[in-house]
């Protein structure tokens, strides 16, 4: 039976790729739908509220209800809108966000990789830069003031923050010596040091730029409610609005997955080379068991009988799944996908956390952060990385490289802070100049 499967894969490579794409698409849509719920719940808990509670136990069916509502809503096209552009704009956003997932490696085996391009990193940068068209064209085609202002802001913001993000990625490229995302993870495996530890500054720059490029707090000026009602998608309703929503959350998942692949070792287990920590391999079944326990605990306190039995069923299902995963063959098979997903979810949680923590930037502050701080830092990081790699020579020791990179990163941060901080005008001077 196993040989038959191998034969099938060899005979129909295109069909297998198509099946993988459909699976990734479906899983991703599910993750995106539940990200919306997770965001509402986590934000609510951080603000001492309960969040959605009505649809299903703890609002667990809220994504389905929202999706149905948006599907059935009237699709309004404003009078005077450029109809053709108005209709294709949200589609461009979604397609650009989903396409990049074709090159993300979810594990080491070929079954978990859709395609391994040798210019994978360039492909990622290229395709993800297309998402901006959805925003600009959508804002322009609405023939309305707020969307136009939102999309102008967005164009300036995305173009500005693509530069530091690209330069941070080049730093990773220098360290890992490859443009293929699979090879970048393999380089982190063979060196035993994740890129985060070689490029801490690069990771920070990438993270800030990623938040800005997904239009998330504190960089959500293109859709600032208090100034622009909803920014570029003010005039969109029904399913087209849902497409924009999906695009935003998909690109959040995307930048998290990219950060994991580039800086956090992709599918690798933390401390994979330390034998004393091998018990971490049992985390997949243990975490499933913990989920089952928590769900069961809450099921007992649920007053609605139907919901109670549903939760008990979920708990039992998780427990059974934990049993399946605990089988030795399965436990090694799920290792990569488990760690990859866990890291991506940790970063996604951070995205929600920022939203609950930081107030929105003012427009000039946004431009200041991008051009005066991130771009000089990214440039300095690039030069320092190249110098350290040249100084260390081929095959340097792990610790030597780590400390050299750490020193170089600190030096860059201090020098840039002194240079930029010294030249930055004070708030009073800016007020005097602009007369505001």
């Amino acid at each position, binding site marked *: 039976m196993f040989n038959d499967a191998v034969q099938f894969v060899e005979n129909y490579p295109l069909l297998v790729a198509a099946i993988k794409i459909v699976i990734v698409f479906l899983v991703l849509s599910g993750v995106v739908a539940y990200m919306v719920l997770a965001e509402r719940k986590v934000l609510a808990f951080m603000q001492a509220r309960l969040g959605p509670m009505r649809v299903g136990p703890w609002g667990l069916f809220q994504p389905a209800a929202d999706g149905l509502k948006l599907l059935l809503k009237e699709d309004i096209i404003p009078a005077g809108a*450029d109809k*053709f*552009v108005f209709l294709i704009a949200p589609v461009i956003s979604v397609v650009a966000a989903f396409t990049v997932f074709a090159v993300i490696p979810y594990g080491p085996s070929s079954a978990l990789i859709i395609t391994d*391009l*040798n*210019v994978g990193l*360039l*492909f990622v*940068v*290229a*395709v993800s*830069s*297309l998402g*901006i*068209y959805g925003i*600009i*064209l959508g804002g*322009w085609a609405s023939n309305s003031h707020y969307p*136009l202002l939102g*999309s*102008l802001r967005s*164009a*300036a913001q*995305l*173009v500005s923050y*693509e530069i530091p993000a690209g330069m941070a990625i080049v730093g990773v490229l220098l360290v890992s010596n490859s*443009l293929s995302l699979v090879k970048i993870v393999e380089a982190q495996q063979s060196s035993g040091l994740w890129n985060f530890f070689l490029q801490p500054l690069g990771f920070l720059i990438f993270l800030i730029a990623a938040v800005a490029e997904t239009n998330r707090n504190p960089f959500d000026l293109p859709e600032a409610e208090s100034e622009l009602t909803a920014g570029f998608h003010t005039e969109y309703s029904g399913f087209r609005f849902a497409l924009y929503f999906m695009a935003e959350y998909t690109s959040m998942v995307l930048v998290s997955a990219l950060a994991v692949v580039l800086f956090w070792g992709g599918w690798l287990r933390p401390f994979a080379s330390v034998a004393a920590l091998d018990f971490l391999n049992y985390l997949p079944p243990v975490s499933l068991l913990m989920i089952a326990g928590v769900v069961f605990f809450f099921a007992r306190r649920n007053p609605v009988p139907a919901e109670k039995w549903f939760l008990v069923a979920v708990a039992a299902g998780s427990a059974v799944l934990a049993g399946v995963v605990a089988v030795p063959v399965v436990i090694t098979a799920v290792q990569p996908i488990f760690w990859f997903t866990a890291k991506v979810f940790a970063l996604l949680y951070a995205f929600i956390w920022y939203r609950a923590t930081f107030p929105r930037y003012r427009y000039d502050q946004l431009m200041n952060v991008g051009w005066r701080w991130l771009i000089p830092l990214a440039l300095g990081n690039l030069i320092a990385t190249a110098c350290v790699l040249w100084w260390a020579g081929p095959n340097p020791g792990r610790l030597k490289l780590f400390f050299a990179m750490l020193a170089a990163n600190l030096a860059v941060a201090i020098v840039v802070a002194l240079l930029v901080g010294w030249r930055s005008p004070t708030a009073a001077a800016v007020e005097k*100049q602009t007369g505001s």
Partner: protein
Amino acid sequence: MLAQSVFLILAVVALSSGVMVITRRNPVHSVIWLIVTLFSVGGIFLLQYAQFLFAVQIILYVGGIMVLYLFVIMLIRVETVAKQAPYSRQWAIGLGAVLVLACELMYGVYKGVESFHLGTPSRPPVDMNNTEAVAGVLYNNYMLPVEIASLLLLVAMVGAVLMAKKRFE
């Protein structure tokens, strides 16, 4: 056979969207069709195993320059531009250029490929991918010209910023 048909499709899309670029009255529509053109030309690069050129085409032209085009066009009044007739004066010159180009192409087709001295296209070594080959040529063989060109671009950029900058009291 497959490569040839893909090439034909891409070529037809590139040419027809190119025609759309110059016939649209609305500049935003022109930009959208120009993006389609650039995409199909990128596809032709990919067909020639030039992955790096394809990626750069998308990153620079589609992802960068076209966004700036849109940015500028959105700031002008599209309605007034759409009312003005394009090519009010240059159509005769354009037609002349097209005729010359058509003659050249017809001559080339009439003579056949064999009668021209074309260099043989070089292929990168098998163990090296396209990106590494481009990098090797740019930064080993032609390092000085690349640096000079980038310096020129930098000077032009600084000049543009200086000209656009408001003078504060």
